[in-house]
């Protein structure tokens, strides 16, 4: 019953998307056609219908309705409730429904709230949004129906991959999807503006909150995903250049570039064509990311959907959407001028430089991620991993970080370095000092560069606040400072982890003490414990930091039974200056236990930095939305007053 309702809502929503598409596109040729007034309401009702479909899916998972094939494949009545609900989107069909839901809600918001742009641009934008949505509705309804039934219903479900039974899973995929879909709105705006030749600062201001919002969620999603891999996989690594990680990094790189270029367009009316192009590229990356994760072309820990039909479908959607957008761009690019000019030394130049560097980094990541697939298609196998990605991206990222520090100090349009030289001296001295001190201690070159650069960045990121009264600093400026500072913090964490981490792999007897870095770790006892759908061996470790009071850690080696799988649950102790990471391995035949221990100084800064970057984005978004709001209220008041004066 619930499943049937969900499916019906989905079909109705698809029909409304069709209406929205026709009405929106007709308005380009036939302004004032009778379908025009329907477009906005269609988007809003569509959002409500898809939300109902999604709630229906959660409901069938909640109740473990075993007449629904998806529930049978991915759930089990003995699973904890949180993972039953999260299981609704922890699989292919459910996650595509989540994608469509977020997209429809975003479209509904645009239809409901956006009043600044000319009406025909909004209609064209909503038509573009409907065009993209229709592809995904077709995909859901034809190739991956989440509400497909089983008759007769089996007595029990198959369970969920234990690696995914983690609170991180409940929030990680939705976070990334919100980011992906936010970029689809930016894409629709770009197409709408191209179609109606309205690539203007007003267009940039309308698009900016969506780009910012998407970027915040992508940042959080990547940060959370990285931390999840770090504690769940049990080997202390936090970034593997795994294709699925790259699939989330690529849209982020494009969105970062887009975010900055959209700001230039909004405040300086420059970089018009470039901004539109990035809008298309950013969404293309979202779709490539979805393709990589959802099609099963990858062999990686994340790829849990294996079905070539789906891959082909997503690829076709990608080709149609991006092909259509690029065709429109090619036809209209001639009519979109680049906008205002600026000098070589100016803030615009710094932003352009970093945009180009971000795009080049994106190119490297894209090529390195797709190359093994291309090679496989040609009949041979290669692996592309950290030894390739690290140096190849560093070539572009390191200069970018330097310019990121200096850029915000420059003035718009025209400036000279002599003016900002005084404020650069202190960070430079510190940077040189740190570099010299580290060089003496004989660190690896890349780690040395990283720490020195991070120290410089942390200082220079704060310089834009210099000489201002902090209470008068605007929210968007705070946002920029916090986000750039966050990049410095994350870089420091990365460099410290690679420079100072120590690892200890030992086979220890109960009662034995192991030394690692400043820690003494004693293996207390090993005992069996049981959870709702697993049993485990749990070690009790007593860890003391340079002779201090012991802290207890309890790493587990877990065995799940639906499906059967072994996982290591690491136990992590966080201090202000780093993390002690412990894993219990197997029992050796002489009665000793494998322990894997890491002391990772300042590793937490990586994710703290990520959170700061997202916080910076949130501050900027808040500032922009608040000022838009104030402007809307003010213009409303003026209109009201005029009306009254007119009467009086």
């Amino acid at each position, binding site marked *: 019953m619930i499943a049937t309702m969900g499916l019906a809502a989905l079909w109705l929503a698809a029909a409304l998307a069709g209406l929205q598409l026709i009405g929106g596109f007709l308005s380009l040729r036939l302004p004032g056609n009778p379908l025009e007034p329907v477009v906005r309401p269609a988007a809003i009702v569509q959002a409500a219908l898809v939300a109902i479909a999604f709630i229906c899916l959660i409901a069938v998972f909640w109740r473990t309705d075993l007449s629904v094939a998806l529930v049978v494949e991915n759930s089990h009545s003995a699973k904890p409730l949180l993972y039953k609900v999260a299981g609704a989107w922890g699989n292919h069909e459910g996650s595509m429904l989540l994608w469509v839901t977020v997209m429809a809600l975003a479209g509904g918001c645009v239809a409901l709230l956006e009043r600044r742009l000319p009406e025909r641009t909004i209609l064209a934008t909503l038509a573009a949004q409907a065009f993209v949505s229709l592809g995904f509705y077709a995909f859901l309804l034809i190739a991956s129906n989440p509400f497909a039934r089983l008759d007769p219903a089996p007595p029990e479900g198959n369970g969920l991959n234990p690696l995914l039974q983690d609170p991180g899973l409940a929030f990680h995929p939705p976070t990334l999807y919100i980011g992906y879909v936010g970029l689809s709105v930016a894409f629709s705006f770009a197409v709408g503006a191209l179609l109606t030749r309205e690539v203007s600062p007003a267009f940039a201001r309308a698009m900016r909150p969506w780009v910012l919002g998407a970027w915040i969620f992508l940042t959080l999603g990547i940060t959370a995903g990285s931390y999840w891999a770090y504690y769940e996989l049990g080997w202390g690594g936090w970034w*593997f250049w795994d294709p699925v990680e790259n699939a989330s990094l690529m849209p982020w790189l494009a969105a970062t570039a887009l975010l900055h270029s959209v700001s230039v367009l909004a405040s300086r009316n420059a970089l018009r064509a470039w901004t539109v192009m990035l809008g298309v590229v950013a969404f293309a990356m979202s779709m490539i990311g979805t393709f990589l994760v959802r099609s099963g072309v990858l062999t990686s820990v994340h790829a849990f959907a294996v079905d070539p039909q789906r891959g082909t479908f997503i690829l076709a959607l990608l080709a149609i959407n991006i092909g259509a957008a690029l065709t429109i761009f090619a036809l209209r690019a001639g009519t979109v001028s680049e906008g205002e000019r600026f000098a*070589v030394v100016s803030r615009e130049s710094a932003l352009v*430089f970093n945009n180009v560097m971000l795009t080049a980094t994106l190119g490297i990541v894209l090529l390195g991620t797709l190359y093994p697939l291309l090679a496989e298609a040609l009949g041979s*196998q290669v692996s*592309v*991993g950290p*030894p*390739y990605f690290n140096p190849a991206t560093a070539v*572009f990222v390191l200069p970018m970080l330097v310019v990121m520090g200096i850029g915000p100090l420059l003035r718009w349009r025209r400036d000279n370095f002599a003016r900002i030289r005084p404020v650069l001296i202190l960070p430079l001295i510190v940077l040189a000092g740190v570099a010299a001190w580290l060089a003496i201690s004989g660190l690896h070159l890349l780690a040395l560069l990283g720490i020195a650069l991070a120290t410089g960045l942390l200082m220079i990121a704060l310089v834009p606040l210099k000489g201002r009264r902090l209470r008068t600093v605007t929210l968007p400026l705070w946002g920029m400072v916090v986000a750039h500072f966050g990049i410095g913090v994350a870089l420091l964490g990365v460099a410290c982890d690679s420079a100072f981490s120590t690892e200890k792999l030992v086979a220890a007897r109960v009662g034995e003490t192991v030394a690692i870095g400043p820690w003494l770790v004693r293996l207390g006892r090993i005992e069996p414990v049981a959870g709702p759908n697993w049993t485990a061996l749990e070690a009790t470790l007593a860890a003391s930091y340079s002779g201090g009071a012991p802290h207890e850690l309890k790493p587990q080696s877990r065995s799940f039974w639906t499906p059967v799988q072994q996982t290591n649950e690491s136990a992590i102790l966080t201090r202000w200056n780093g993390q002690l990471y412990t894993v219990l*391995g197997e029992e050796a035949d002489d009665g000793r236990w494998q322990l894997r221990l890491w002391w990772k100084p300042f590793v937490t800064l990586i994710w703290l930095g990520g959170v700061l970057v997202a916080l910076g984005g949130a501050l900027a978004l808040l500032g922009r939305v608040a000022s838009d709001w104030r402007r809307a209220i003010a213009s409303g008041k003026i209109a009201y007053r005029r009306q009254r004066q007119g009467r009086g």
Partner: protein
Amino acid sequence: MMRALLLASLLIATPALADSTMPPAPYANVQLEDPAQEAKAAALMASLRCLQCQGQAISDSDAQIAGDLRNQVRLRIKAGEDPEAIRAWLIDRYGDYVSYAPRVTSLTWPLFAAPLALLGLAFVLLRRRFTRSAA
């Protein structure tokens, strides 16, 4: 993909590896005594793919074949072999797929040309942009 699976299944079929009652390889989960040697081994192991697992390095895997390869790498480093020589030996044995550091071959050269091409492209783009705007 198929080849990797085939390789992996061949490896599993090898009696010495398949026999789980055998004592684990001595250096599978134990570090080398000399920290400098261990650092070399760790760097190498992080750049070798575990053929049986999905997208994990042998340094990050619980699979038995990964343990066996770790043991091999540590033993050879201990015997004074050069890390790159060990990599070459492994590539010889398992194919290019085992190494996360692609070699420059007729197949992979675009990977290495790309950063240079992108650098060139970035330079041209920026130069054009700025000479135009300065005028």
